[in-house]
């Protein structure tokens, strides 16, 4: 659908147009009828070519008509001489050009052009490159044309290196050239691969690319394509990305229960071995990252050796004050010295750019990503400041920036706990401006969590499913409304939901609490909520403990 501007016409003009259209429709129907009648009749191929040409010049998007022409050309290929073939293909190419003048984005016309040129005895693919350049001058973003350009370059026998030089030209012409960055990102790994195999692109070229991006950013900091390209260069796609299986992070074995928390979603049922024997029982996936086992072992004090086996490796559990435990420190982003230096250099440039153009959101956003990649603790304060600035400069995406804040706050807090978080008794996340919950799989063994005074909504509830050992949970002063998708929390004894927005809707909150498997719950507060007074707390608590 192409935008068609509304144009006012007089009644007379409208009448004339109507008549013209009627005649066109008549002609079209007549042509189509005849086309269908004579299809397949080789003797009438010449007439067929004339008829289909007529229709296609006005309606270039009718696949079947192009297909018919292709059938005829395949016949020609068998019978005609090279010279005749050359002329026929040249004319055909001209036809597609006429159609493209009419609609530069016609899938059919571009496709047919590429197809038919292959039938030419001496196709001039390099001339096609010139054609593409012309079209791109009119509309740089015409991806049909870019696709055709790649085809033409490949058919011209251009090596990836030559194609790379082409993209270099296009970028030098105009930095704001999204498609060219694109093209480049695909070619670089082919033309300049890292000989050591440690990264996607050879380091010297990698630095050159970063330099290009810098120039682009200084020329026009508001051009997002350069920033996205930079992110790609600095990202893990450009270092050898290993798809890792989900790793077990935390494991606990106690009387009748075992818990395993993973780095990411694990679909395979884990296995627990105690003193060489498999522990039988029921394994359940209690949340996206956490598996829980109900087993029959009453006391774990006498156990000599306990081991858990998962798709991401084995863990040996050690005795601790709370039972048998295994804790694996999650590797943060490991960057070698070279990469670190690059990142630091880029951050320096960003900060310099900010002194020149202090209102560019892309610079702030990139700086935030860089800071988080370099040192979470060192840059925490500045990251928060920059996020505030981003909300000011780009209010449309305030929700997104707050979400990023929630993630970084969590990562900061975890970095402070470092190692001890696994067996930490309690964690306070009160007044942390949290609107989303990230990395809760790291809190699977924590017994008390304070999430009061944040901006949490019902959407965050499923993440709490990782808190399978939590006895005390404070969710007061948040923005919870329905408690839909409240996860199963069988260890929970104390829950504070006061000062939220829990709905008056009859039975809604009640039902969600009953479905959350809160079998150990002894204390529940729902004060200062619309639903307060409508919930029979005593009855609820009694029923829950009977389940």
């Amino acid at each position: 659908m192409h935008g068609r501007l509304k144009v006012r016409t007089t009644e007379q003009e409208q009448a004339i147009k109507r008549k013209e259209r009627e005649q066109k429709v008549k002609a079209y129907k007549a042509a189509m009828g005849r086309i269908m009648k004579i299809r397949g009749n080789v003797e009438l191929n010449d007439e067929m070519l004339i008829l289909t040409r007529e229709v296609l010049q006005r309606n270039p998007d009718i696949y079947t008509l192009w297909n018919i022409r292709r059938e005829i050309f395949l016949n020609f290929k068998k019978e005609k001489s090279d010279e005749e073939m050359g002329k026929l293909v040249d004319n055909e190419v001209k036809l597609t050009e006429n159609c493209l003048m009419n609609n530069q984005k016609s899938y059919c016309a571009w496709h047919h052009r590429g197809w038919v040129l292959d039938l030419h005895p001496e196709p001039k693919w390099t001339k096609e490159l010139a054609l593409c350049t012309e079209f791109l001058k009119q509309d740089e973003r015409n991806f049909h044309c870019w696709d055709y350009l790649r085809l033409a370059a490949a058919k011209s026998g251009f090596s990836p290196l030559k194609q790379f030089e082409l993209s270099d030209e296009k970028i030098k012409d105009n930095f704001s050239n999204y498609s060219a960055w694109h093209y480049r990102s695909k070619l670089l790994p082919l033309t300049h691969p890292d000989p050591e195999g440690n990264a996607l692109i050879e380091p010297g070229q990698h630095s050159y690319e970063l330099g290009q991006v810098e120039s682009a950013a200084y020329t026009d900091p508001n051009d997002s394509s350069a920033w996205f390209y930079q992110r790609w260069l600095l990202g893990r796609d450009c270092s050898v990305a290993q798809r890792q299986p989900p790793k077990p992070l935390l494991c606990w074995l106690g009387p009748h229960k075992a818990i395993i928390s993973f780095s990411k979603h694990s679909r395979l049922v884990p296995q627990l071995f105690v003193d060489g024997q498999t522990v039988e029982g029921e394994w359940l996936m209690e949340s996206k990252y956490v598996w829980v086992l109900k087993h029959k072992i009453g006391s774990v004090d006498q156990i000599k050796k306990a081991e858990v086996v998962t798709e991401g490796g084995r863990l040996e559990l050690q005795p601790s004050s709370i039972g048998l435990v295994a804790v694996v420190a999650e590797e943060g982003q490991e960057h070698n010295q070279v990469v670190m230096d690059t990142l630091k250099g880029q951050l320096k440039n960003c900060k310099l750019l900010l002194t020149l153009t202090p209102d560019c959101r892309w610079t702030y956003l990139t700086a935030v990503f860089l800071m988080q990649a370099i040192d979470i603790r060192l840059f925490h304060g500045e990251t928060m400041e920059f996020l505030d600035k981003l909300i000011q400069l780009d209010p449309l995406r305030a929700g997104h920036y707050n979400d990023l804040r929630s993630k970084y706050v969590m990562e900061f807090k975890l970095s402070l706990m470092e190692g001890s978080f696994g067996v930490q008794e309690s964690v306070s996340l009160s007044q942390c401006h949290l609107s989303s919950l990230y990395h809760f799989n790291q809190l699977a063994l924590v017994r008390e969590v304070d999430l009061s005074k944040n901006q949490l909504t019902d959407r965050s509830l499923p993440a709490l499913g990782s808190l399978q050992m939590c006895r005390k949970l404070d969710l007061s002063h948040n923005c919870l409304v329905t408690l839909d998708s409240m996860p199963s929390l069988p260890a929970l004894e104390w829950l504070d939901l006061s000062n939220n927005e829990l709905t008056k809707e009859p039975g809604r909150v009640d039902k969600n609490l009953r479905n959350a498997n809160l079998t150990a719950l002894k204390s529940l507060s729902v004060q200062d909520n619309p639903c307060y007074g409508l919930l029979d707390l005593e009855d609820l608590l009694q029923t829950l403990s009977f389940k």
Partner: protein
Amino acid sequence: MEEVKFIPGTHSKYFKRFLQMMPPQTQKGDTQRLMFAFFAISGLDILNALESCNAQHRQDMIEWIYSLQIQPDDDEESWSRCGFMGSCTFKLQSKESREYQHSHIAMTYTALSSLIILGDDLSRVNRPAVIRGVRALQQPDGSFCAHLGGSENDMRFIFCAAVICYTLKDWSGMDMPLVEDFIKSSLSYEGAIAQGPGLEAHGGSTYCAIAALVLMGRLSIFSDEQLDRLRNWLLMRQVAGFQGRPNKPDDTCYSFWVGATLKLLDRYQFIDKKKNREFILSTQQNLTGGFSKWPDNTSDPLHTYFGLCGLSLMSEPGLKEIDCALNMSVDAAKRLEQIQTWNS
């Protein structure tokens, strides 16, 4: 600025007129009438106006759609042509010329979806034939062509194939690993998905890829990191309404393409709903009904349909909720589920 009022009644009239007769500007779409019909049918459904079309009219539409189905004949090869055509323009009588009747993958997709929305139970669909017709269109690189006679191949047709297989609950219609490979190699440096490898990331192709993966149950081919980068790119598309690519003007239909993808990736709550709604309504055509891609342009069925979908994502009163992966109302999706249970 005076607030523009949403006029669902006028849009219903627009679509109903459209179903009676297509305006001359759409002559170029003659062979793809089924797709236009889908916009009107699903559009009316989302407007809660389909029931008000009389039952006979709905039945007529169902019959028309079935008349576009291509059945196989004794020739084994003919199975590859099966599916649905876009219109009767190429409906041929003689047996010899029947070998020229090819289905079009987007027409097969819109046929099945339209049938479900209209209340049909798909009992007259030749399932094995349709599936084989889809499979025949898959290319060695994993993408799909539209048409056996030859056409371009890209992400749009992967989406069509995925919906067809999902609807008929038959994934032999595609080699899934190949599709996954094509999608992965179409991920651009920007972190979003293009029509094909080496091209610019685009809101439409990103929707097609993600929705297809959701239907296939294979969103897990992307790591959390990759999905986060994608979410970031999508959220950056909001200008007031949404644009399809960086540095392009916003266009009504992207409120759906980008919006629905954000819904599927659980980040829709981060958009600015007020600005999005204002933009969509600025493209509303109050006289004729419908929506256009930009303000002060003529409305067309595609932008009308996706404009309505864009409003529905924000729970606009009077509109049905949409199933973002299937691109139809949740009601229709539930009916599909029922049909699927009856058949198993």
